[in-house]
């Protein structure tokens, strides 16, 4: 089975600092692999281990994305493409760039995350399914392949739904589907030596979205903190209005 996994690299959001105006300082932040992309990689590799085949990773990112691709290799991805030219979160552009590449690679299944950890957009699966005219299953917590059928259990708001679909299909995964593996040193070393295919995109961004502000949410909390066993009386008093 030929599987493509879509991997996003984001800034490390835990390292974000604010300036004196409460605005995010976005420059020079360390980068890391998007949380859900790691679940997607783990899913793809587990499917390969179970059903055989090959996993190809694609990142639309910058030249710095090699670190994420190496991590993917260490986890078990066989081959990887980095398409350079990513500038900002723009799902239509990302889907155009990724679908152009996907069309060149033989595939039965495309795996990606349900919502990426920075933008949380969750639009990519639908955009790609429509663009590539593939079957779409999202927020998967269980995937079973049977010949050219795939059964997927999806986590919806109030129920778990198991659906059947034909391959090829595009499946986005939920965080609960698995626990991404931590590769050992040998695998990490071997991954470092593997070739990464690096390409450039000619898809262009339009300038149609104006950011008026990018600030941390306002914090008007009182922040009265009690230590050393204090505060019970005060808090009990505040909570008394409840009764």
């Amino acid at each position: 089975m030929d599987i493509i996994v879509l991997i996003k690299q984001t800034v490390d959001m835990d390292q974000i600092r604010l300036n004196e105006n409460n605005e995010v300082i976005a420059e020079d932040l360390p980068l890391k692999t998007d949380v859900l992309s790691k679940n997607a990689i783990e899913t793809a590799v587990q499917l390969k281990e179970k059903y055989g085949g090959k996993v190809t990773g694609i990142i639309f990112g910058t030249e710095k994305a090699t670190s994420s691709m190496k991590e993917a290799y260490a986890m078990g991805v066989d081959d990887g493409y980095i398409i350079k030219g990513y500038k900002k979160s723009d799902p239509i552009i990302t889907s155009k760039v990724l679908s152009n590449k996907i069309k060149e690679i033989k595939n039965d299944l495309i795996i990606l995350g349900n919502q990426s950890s920075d933008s949380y957009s969750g639009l990519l699966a639908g955009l790609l399914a429509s663009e590539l005219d593939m079957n779409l299953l999202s927020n998967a917590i269980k995937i079973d392949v049977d010949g050219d059928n795939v059964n997927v259990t999806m986590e919806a708001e109030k129920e778990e739904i198991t659906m059947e679909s034909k391959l090829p299909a595009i499946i986005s995964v939920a965080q609960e589907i698995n626990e991404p593996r931590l590769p050992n040193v040998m695998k990490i070393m071997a991954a470092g030596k593997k070739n990464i295919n690096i390409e450039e995109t000619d898809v262009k961004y339009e300038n149609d979205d104006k950011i008026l502000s990018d600030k941390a949410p306002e914090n008007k909390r009182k922040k009265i903190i009690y230590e050393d066993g204090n505060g019970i009386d005060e808090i009990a008093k505040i909570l008394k209005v409840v009764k």
Partner: protein
Amino acid sequence: MRCLIFSDDADNLKEIISYFYKKMDIDVFCNSEVLDYGANNVYKYNDGFSDNISEYLIELYNKNKYDYIFISSTNLGRQIAGILSDKLNEKCMPEIFSFENDYKVVTKRFFYGGKSVLTEETDFKIFTVAPGIYEAKKVDKRSNLIDAKLKNSRYKILSKKKKNTGGNDITKAKVIVSIGRGLGSKENIEKVMPLVDALHGEIAGSRPVCLDYKWLSEDKQVGLSGKKVKPDFYIALGISGQIQHLAGIRNAKTIIAINKDKNAPIFEECDYGIVGDLFTVVPKLVDKLKNN
């Protein structure tokens, strides 16, 4: 201005209609009979999937020339938003929690997993709407109900399982006692229940507690990927206060935190905090509440 709203979740749908009521003319495409919240036409479907729902929405959009399409950010909603964005070749602004169109459209959404709020001016037509945008309110106006017949889908459902839900809806609670990994075990829930009872509150939890350890059912998860709550009092017990958790409690009136780690980020985002072991602080607090 006219808009088309899609939602497969009646609660989200009511919130979205209420948010736009009187700001524009509203038509709705949904699978529930939500007829007294202010929409003009309610197109009701049964058992739809991403393909046949998208097809119907595109027909409606082309026929009625809506200015905007709002889609509730449910699992199905996001699939459909992506498909519509591609098929209509219109950009979609995801996860908005505020929309104004005085003379230009200005939206707000969280970015960087909740670390920042992006305020953006756009000419986009499609938006996904984060849950909890507004309080749903019934109005006097009654909507037209139209039966929407969907075409056949390429998908087939094999089985459905209702998720465990633990009774009351935490988004409506006035007092929430919320537990985190600091509680240590499921058995320890009974040690905090006296506080929940004393305050006539609801119990809720962080993501690990609801999703990974299943100490509570999933509908009790508070946060970015859980419920956005707005109680008068939110009491966080053994919750560190990661940004994804905080995204769910921004609208709480008063936040009280009990955590043994003085440096836990929750103390930056609370009104009152006690640095201490929750297993000693909670019983003392319950005693005080009972004796007053």
